[in-house]
């Protein structure tokens, strides 16, 4: 069982090694990288490629580790007890399984995606140490131990908003998805829009990388933004020549809204365009 990338997803060699190491050694894989470099998509693609079911657990700032294991719904039980419901006698009726439980009890070996782990409280990763390490946890209410029948492949993504604790990191494989170079980027574009004119791709990639290199730009456009932009270019049937035109009015690329996401950057470009116009007389 080896992950080699899929027809929709270009995986660089270092990424493939990291994924395969995590799958073989049954340890979590921590993925970091610029926003829009395909961290979350990776889990979906690994699931497709290895034909394993995908269980996704999206983390929010309010998510607690316990919610991934199970939740005891005390309020419903309280209400039921006042109504004299028969269900109340068995505590099991009020235990709600979390995503980890679901993954541990899955018949096939699943992929568990813990998405954006850095969004949660700083203690969150620490609370999951044992569970991810031994792949088992204890349910106090019912006195049972839930143990993974088949150790799931755990993929964790982080946007680096919080530092993760060392003890947690020690147990993971780590991969930093760096921004793809022009060659890889062409492959990625090719996978998403096979019918796109290669000339348009070449020109737009040039514009794109130039844009990323503009000093002082606040939010550099990423892969997903490039793909959106190309889609728009195709929709509007923009000619490659239009991208190449370097006269003053066209210094800001057409449909830049897909690439530049904040007004300071747009202003910066307008200023640069203005300077260029003045230079050209």
């Amino acid at each position, binding site marked *: 069982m080896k992950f080699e990338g899929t027809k929709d997803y270009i995986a660089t060699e*270092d990424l493939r*090694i990291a994924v395969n190491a995590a799958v073989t050694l049954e340890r979590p894989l921590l993925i970091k990288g610029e926003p829009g470099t395909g961290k979350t998509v990776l889990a979906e693609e690994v699931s497709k490629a290895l034909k394993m079911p995908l269980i996704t657990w999206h983390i929010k700032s309010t998510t607690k580790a316990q919610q991934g294991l199970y939740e005891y719904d005390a309020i419903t039980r309280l209400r039921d007890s006042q109504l004299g419901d028969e269900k109340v006698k068995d505590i099991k009726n009020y235990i709600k399984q979390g995503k980890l439980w679901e993954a541990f009890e899955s018949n096939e070996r699943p992929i568990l995606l813990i998405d954006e782990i850095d969004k949660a409280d700083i203690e969150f990763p620490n609370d999951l140490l044992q569970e991810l390490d031994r792949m088992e946890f204890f349910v106090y209410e019912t006195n049972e131990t839930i143990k993974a029948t088949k150790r799931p492949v755990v993929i964790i993504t982080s946007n680096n908003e919080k530092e993760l604790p060392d003890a947690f*990191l020690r147990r993971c494989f780590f991969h930093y998805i760096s921004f793809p170079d022009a060659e890889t980027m062409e492959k990625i574009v090719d996978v998403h829009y096979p019918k796109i004119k290669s000339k348009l791709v070449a020109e737009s990639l040039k514009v794109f990388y130039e844009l990323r290199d503009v000093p002082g730009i606040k939010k550099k456009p990423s892969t997903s933004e490039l793909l959106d932009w190309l889609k728009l270019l195709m929709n509007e049937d923009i000619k490659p020549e239009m991208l190449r035109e370097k006269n003053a009015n066209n210094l800001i690329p057409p449909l830049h809204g897909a690439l530049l996401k904040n007004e300071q950057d747009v202003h910066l470009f307008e200023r640069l365009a203005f300077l260029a116009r003045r230079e050209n007389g």
Partner: protein
Amino acid sequence: MFVNFFHELKNANLPVSLREYLTLLEAMDKGIPNRKIEEFYYLSRSTLVKDEKNLDKFDQVFGHVFKGLESLESDEIAEIPEEWLKTLNEKFLTEEEKQKIESMGGWDKLMEELKKRLEEQEKRHEGGSKWIGTGGTSPYGSDGYNPEGIRIGQKENKNYKAVKVWDKREFKNLDKDVEIGTRNIKVALRRLRKFARDGAADTLDLPGTIKNTADKGYLDISLVPERRNKVKVLLFFDIGGSMDMHVKLCEELFSAAKTEFKNMESFYFHNCLYESVWKDNRRRHTEKIDTWDILHKYSSDYKVIFVGDASMSPYEITYPGGSVEHWNEEAGAEWLQRITDIYQNVIWINPVETKHWEFTPSTQIISQIISDRMYPLTLDGLDKGMKELSRNK
């Protein structure tokens, strides 16, 4: 097996542990890297490095430790057994060529000559007409033009690509000791966020409600105040003069900081803090704010961050009237002392590299006044600074 490598990583201050080393060995045992040096590099990288800021350091250590691979390759050329070359000779050389070898004094002579040159030659060699290597016109080495040349050690170098991968050091700008961009600053500053419950009780306290209900036997709803970010910050930016080259970085810091705190006030000063500061650099001479007003207005639980290069003449700090711009009644040191007396948490962030600090007396004076709480404008420095700021005394 790779203990040396592991120790080198440890010596380079990379946070690697035995557990990770064992994981690496386990992965090697399971045959994940396919006996290819690149794959080993990628595997060890994902096992031993857990933070992108350390990737560059790792690349350097890897390049250093496994540099042997390159020399191994050149050893290969030097240590080709004679017999092997002889069989090669029989296999690949035409009669005509063999005669040409004879013209150099025969096979033995050629080998002798080869040995001699190998001894003379110290480094791997490319081009040229005498030394052994590739692509030259010397009779030794490979791909030469000399009909007398023999082909030795010409073998595709599989290591080369991988060596290049880490030699590229593409993660250099993620290194924590390198200066930083807006996003990185944000991450570092986030350290400071401290949520505390404050204000009106308007959020339902679910666990509290359940507990109270169970205790009392009827539904008893309890409320708690919402959690809010309580950190208050005063920022002082040094502007003009020697700081101009750092202004861009400082502006980044400023814009990043803006979104992080609920209460943040920023002021500008020039070189050293005196009796007045200003809020808008364009109107610095007309709209001055009395520093005393600031000290009175903002309570002592504000955290104070100075951003400045602290490079000036020592007189500007220690003597009244030392300022280069105006006559100051009291020395800058007095004002800095007042700040540190009132506010518990004060740090000074210096965009100048740490190694230059000791050569600037003014930097040392200021550092002394704020009791060594001066940090460089790197991710590491900011991190330390934020830790210092969030410390409660």
